[in-house]
């Protein structure tokens, strides 16, 4: 019961912190404000998270974990490696499209907030690129695409996706992010030698 209450209070602080960080950025956010929105004392926040840095790091980690888990879950529904790669890319893009604040926190605010965050972002980057590389390798094994350096291609894919999302985040009047997807998908799949007919057969997004 007490443990349950403590867990709930911790989540409450993280929820409040997310809102404060996404509104004011990492540097602008004050622990006082987080405590106020979590309806707890500053001491209550420090009990769970000894520093502002540790709080932000925990947010980055749990949010990224959740996104990766969602991508894996969605991709697992497909059996064909090309369909999996499509679902994985689409899930990342559409999740960010629906969660602009999350995208900003993960992809913009964390950069330059400090070396600890840089390391965490590296980790996230590697996990996504690793996910994509695994799908590409399967596609090579299954003879769907010709052998290639999957690690480099995965970096390039992630880089393209990342750039499109960051551009969208920076735009003063952002267009609907999902609209970029059909073009992005076609470019990436053509780059690894997928037939036009196969690309056309993928579900409309």
């Amino acid at each position, binding site marked *: 019961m007490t443990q349950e209450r403590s867990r709930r209070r911790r*989540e409450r602080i993280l*929820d409040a912190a*997310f*809102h404060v960080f*996404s509104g004011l950025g990492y540097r602008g956010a004050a622990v006082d404000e987080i405590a106020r929105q*979590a309806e707890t004392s500053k001491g209550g926040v420090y009990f769970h998270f000894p520093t502002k840095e540790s709080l932000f790091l925990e947010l980055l980690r749990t*949010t990224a974990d959740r996104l990766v888990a969602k991508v894996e879950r969605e991709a697992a529904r497909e059996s064909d490696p090309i369909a999996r790669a499509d679902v994985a890319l689409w899930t990342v893009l559409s*999740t960010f499209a629906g969660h602009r*604040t999350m995208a900003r926190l993960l992809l913009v605010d964390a950069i330059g907030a400090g070396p600890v965050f840089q390391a965490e972002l590296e980790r996230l980057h590697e996990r996504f690129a690793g996910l994509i590389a695994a799908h590409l390798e399967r596609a090579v094994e299954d003879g769907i695409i010709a052998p290639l350096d999957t690690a480099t291609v995965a970096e390039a894919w992630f880089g393209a996706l990342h750039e499109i999302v960051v551009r969208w985040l920076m735009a003063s009047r952002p267009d609907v992010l999902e609209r970029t997807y059909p073009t992005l998908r076609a470019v990436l799949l053509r780059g690894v030698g997928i037939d036009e007919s196969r690309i056309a057969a993928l579900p409309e997004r």
Partner: protein
Amino acid sequence: MTVTNRTGAETDRRPGSGADELVAILLPLLDRTTVRGVRTLVSATVPVAWRDPVALFAAARAIDDEVAIWLQPDAGFGLVAIGSAWTVEATGCDRFRQVATAWSDLVEGAVVQGSDDVPGAGPLLFGGFGFGAEAARSPTWAGFESARLGLPSLLMTVTQASTWLTASIMITPGAKPGAREAVARELDRRWARLAAEATEPVPLVPASAELRIARQVPEAPEWRATVARFAGAVGRGRLDKAVLARRVDLHADGSIDVPAVIRRLEATGPESTIFAVGRGTRTFLGATPERLARSKGREFRTVAMAGSIRRGSDAEEDERLGADLLASEKDREEQAVVVEMLRETLSPVTDRLEIPHRPSVVRLRHIQHLATELRGRLREPVGIVGLVERLHPTPAVGGAPRELALELIAHEERLERGWYAGPVGWLDRRGDGEFVVAIRSGVVDGRAASLFAGCGIVADSDPQREWEESLMKLRTLATALGRVAS
């Protein structure tokens, strides 16, 4: 005397007209009926002269503890449920099934005569369910159990074409025929008296009561902080959406005239469903734009309503705001979450489900909403209560994913919702009927009123804007009650 009612038909308005026929039908029915089991329902429906439903509600409310009204002005449909021949109460997760089972057991052996092929005429169950499965503890909700529906002794059904009166009597084994007859005659007298009192429609007069805010639950700073945390929870990817409600207690300078309030709600929200359920001195009432479901046999309709913006000061601004609403990512996301949940919930139980690709804009008096109307056909004839059980609570009042949103609401909202945002409606003896989501609602008791409003929180929700949106939603009922001193 003849007058023209709102549908333009000439109707006979002699007091008690139609009731003689009622007794004439009921008496032989009562004589003939042998009671099977513990009790048998005997019910008769006859055409009667039109009465203003609000006037009838007012007359009945003055003498009866349990009176309810349901008005859909645009459809020309209304129900006034007077007294209670039988009630069913239930709590817990099983409450929908308990109600459906008890009702189908009762109507199975019922003796029914009259035109009950008219929708909403004949013996029917009217009432509601609380938002949550457990009974509310606060005195505001005394009498509003987590499921409570009643079979009215007298029911007036108004359709565009005709008006009907249904009388229902429960007879038990061993009751003397004379006693049965006495009940029928008593109902007849009651109807005659009410019909005589309700000859003049309740006039539409502007709300003049002065209201002051006695209490807000929670207070503004706490509510805004909770909005921020909910937005943070969505932003972190813990959930897609959660609805946060609040309560405002108002105190009027005099006793609140409930029938006058209903008349004003009807006038300002003809596209809404206006409902009032009276229990003792309390009345739970509101004007909701949100239909939960309507069923006839296996065919049903439901609507996803989420995402809102204010009304403009002129037609041009209205158009512009409506276009902004359709273009707003935050609102389209809120809307998509609801449609998706309905699709997931209904797909397994339907063999046909039609979902339009784009939402449309619905304009109400103080607010505009995004709405998507869904139609479908059920695989199994589960009836309206089976459908309500699946749909409630929709993400428009709960959240998505449902379980996590409800857990957050239960721990963070600091409010007893009671019947607010719960399903209110009716079902006939075939199990068909309609339920709405009881939002834009509140409880009136003498000079006191408690009003409720909720806002759907997504990642981009701003606490101050949500506060303003909740004020806009509170206004529906508040302006019908009186003028709120700022």
